[in-house]
């Protein structure tokens, strides 16, 4: 056995906990999960069926752990892992599975194919077979902390620019985007670019929240690599910052995988994790229900549909909050079918949008999503994950859908600013919106 394979298998063994082992063993090879996968739905070839993808891992698992697989490998489809298999495995685990878990929902056995694919990703990353772009993005995020002094001044200058825009939009010359404010209640963690900072800043200003903006971005490419060390290092920057500032809550920008990482994974990685983590969509839904945001849905008159991000929805439980928001801020909200936990992945998740050479692959994988959107007749597709938004925008161009893609907070801000303009003309009290 080569050193590379040895290293790959050592990493695999580390991933092999009870959940993974049960998923590897329990598959009855009934095949009914196939159509539930958007990759298979777009290209109904056997290799795209979830059970077929998982078989690439089960083959060497059986060779290692099943006595029959060791004695009579052909009988149970067991096979040694060879270096030549690693490239194919990378195509499957990184390129043909977005870890969306739609197949898990549809498997009578509860097989977690995403977990199996994550184990494959972990071993491929360990032996240098992960997509180079994902590795570079993860390492760049880690380097940002190491060179924070270098970035700080530049970043704060950019934020001051943005602050002027905030003051213009809110009409309040005192409006601020606080950075590194010790003792603030909320640490808001945005994504790279102003588009996730300004709308949140307007809303924080609207409700008078005590907040501060993180120096770091929420994205975590280490998680896509299934490399716990890298993922932890990236998450640690935010956790340390939250501790240093003494905040009570971390609020995340509209980002699917960042929510998975900080809401569901990070509390298992750090012994001291004394803050609540929420997505801005949970917070906005709460403010809307409490009547803290005056809103005018006529500011968003176009038909709007909502794409449930797999990380936030099916795997995060944020199924109703986006609907509370949309019913309050748009005039014509149309559900796509299926939706909520049964929604189809957009085809760009788990890092696919970041890998340029997989553009065609993800365009094909998004075909089911395109059909879903078209059936609604919506002009705007709202999505609360940046990766989904990128993918949906590309799908719209690729398939000539002509839809506009928007974040939820952009729609909230539009409705809020319109209501404020109205309030300034005729002062009225804001009315709570029920769920």
């Amino acid at each position, binding site marked *: 056995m080569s050193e590379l394979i040895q290293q790959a298998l050592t990493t695999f063994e580390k991933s092999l*906990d009870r959940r993974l082992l049960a998923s590897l*063993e*329990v598959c009855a090879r009934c095949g009914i999960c196939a*159509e539930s996968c958007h990759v298979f739905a777009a290209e109904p070839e056997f290799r795209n069926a979830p059970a077929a993808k998982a078989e690439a891992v089960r083959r060497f698992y059986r060779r290692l752990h099943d006595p029959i697989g060791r004695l009579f490998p052909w009988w149970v489809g067991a096979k040694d892992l060879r270096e030549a298999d690693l490239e194919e495995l990378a195509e499957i685990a990184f390129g043909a599975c977005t870890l969306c878990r739609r197949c898990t929902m*549809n498997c009578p056995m509860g097989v977690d194919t995403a977990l199996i694919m994550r184990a494959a990703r972990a071993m491929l990353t360990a032996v240098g077979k992960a997509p180079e772009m994902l590795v570079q993005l993860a390492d760049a995020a880690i380097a940002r902390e190491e060179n924070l002094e270098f970035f700080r001044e530049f970043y704060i200058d950019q934020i001051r620019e943005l602050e002027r825009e905030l003051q213009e939009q809110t009409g309040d010359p005192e409006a601020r985007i606080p950075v590194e404010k010790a003792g603030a209640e909320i640490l808001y963690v945005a994504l790279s670019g102003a588009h996730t900072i300004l709308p949140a800043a307007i809303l924080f200003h609207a409700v008078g929240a005590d907040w501060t903006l993180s120096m770091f971005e929420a994205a975590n490419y280490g998680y896509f690599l299934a490399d716990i060390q890298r993922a932890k290092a990236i998450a640690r920057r935010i956790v340390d910052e939250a501790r240093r500032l003494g905040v009570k809550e971390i609020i995340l920008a509209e980002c699917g995988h960042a929510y998975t990482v900080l809401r569901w994974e990070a*509390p298992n990685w750090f012994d001291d994790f004394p803050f609540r983590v929420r997505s801005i969509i949970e917070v906005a839904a709460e403010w809307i229900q409490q009547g803290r945001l005056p809103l005018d849905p006529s500011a968003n008159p176009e038909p709007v549909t909502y794409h449930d991000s797999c990380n936030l929805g099916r795997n995060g439980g944020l199924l109703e909050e986006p609907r509370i928001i949309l019913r309050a801020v748009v005039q014509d909200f149309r559900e796509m079918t299926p939706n909520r936990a*049964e929604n189809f992945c957009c085809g760009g998740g788990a890092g696919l949008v970041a890998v340029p050479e997989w553009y065609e692959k993800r365009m094909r994988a998004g075909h089911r999503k395109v059909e879903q959107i078209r059936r609604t007749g919506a002009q705007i597709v709202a999505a609360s994950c940046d990766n989904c938004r990128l993918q949906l925008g590309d799908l719209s161009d690729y398939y000539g859908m002509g839809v506009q893609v928007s974040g939820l907070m952009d729609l909230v801000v539009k409705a809020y600013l319109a209501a404020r303009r109205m309030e300034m003309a005729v002062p009225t009290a804001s009315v709570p919106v029920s769920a």
Partner: protein
Amino acid sequence: MSATALWGWMVLIALGISVGGVAWRLRGLLARPLRPDRSPARGSAWRGILYAFTMGMMPWAKESTRQHLLPYLRGVLFHVGIFATLASLAVSPWRLSLPAPLAVGGLVLTGIGAAGGVIGILMRIFDERLRALSHPDDYAAVALVTAWQAAGVAFWADPRWMAVFYGLSALTLVAIPVTKIRHCIYFFFSRFFFGLFYGRRAVLG
């Protein structure tokens, strides 16, 4: 000693081997780390687990089973037949003193299971997707269990088949931990983890 009594002993020995094999499999599973989830739950883990084993198994609960309703129901009947055949084995020493309606019930249920098994084998042979997914072990396991259920039918129809039923029972029991049939051991864990995950996250349950 009669052939039936001899095979009866063989079943007991096979049961011992099977229990040992299952225990060995369980030990392998439980030796692996559990990695408890310390993130604060949004929903109820127990409701999720309850859902996973009850409503979540209903044919209408999943898009896949709605789409593949007949194959799913076939699978359900096949497994009902397996439980009926196991029950038949448990009561077999008292076969002649059992009330007639029970014998009819046993015959019908094992018969349904065997029919489900035959259809399952044919599907695996003729359905391109299933063929691509299957290994020799898959065919052999379904064939063995189907033959066992068929022997159960014969046993209920005519107790003279008891020796054959016992022989196939012994083989099936021994096969549980080493063939595809072992998925029945992991099913409970896998569904438990499924329910736990989605229950905590307030997605199901």
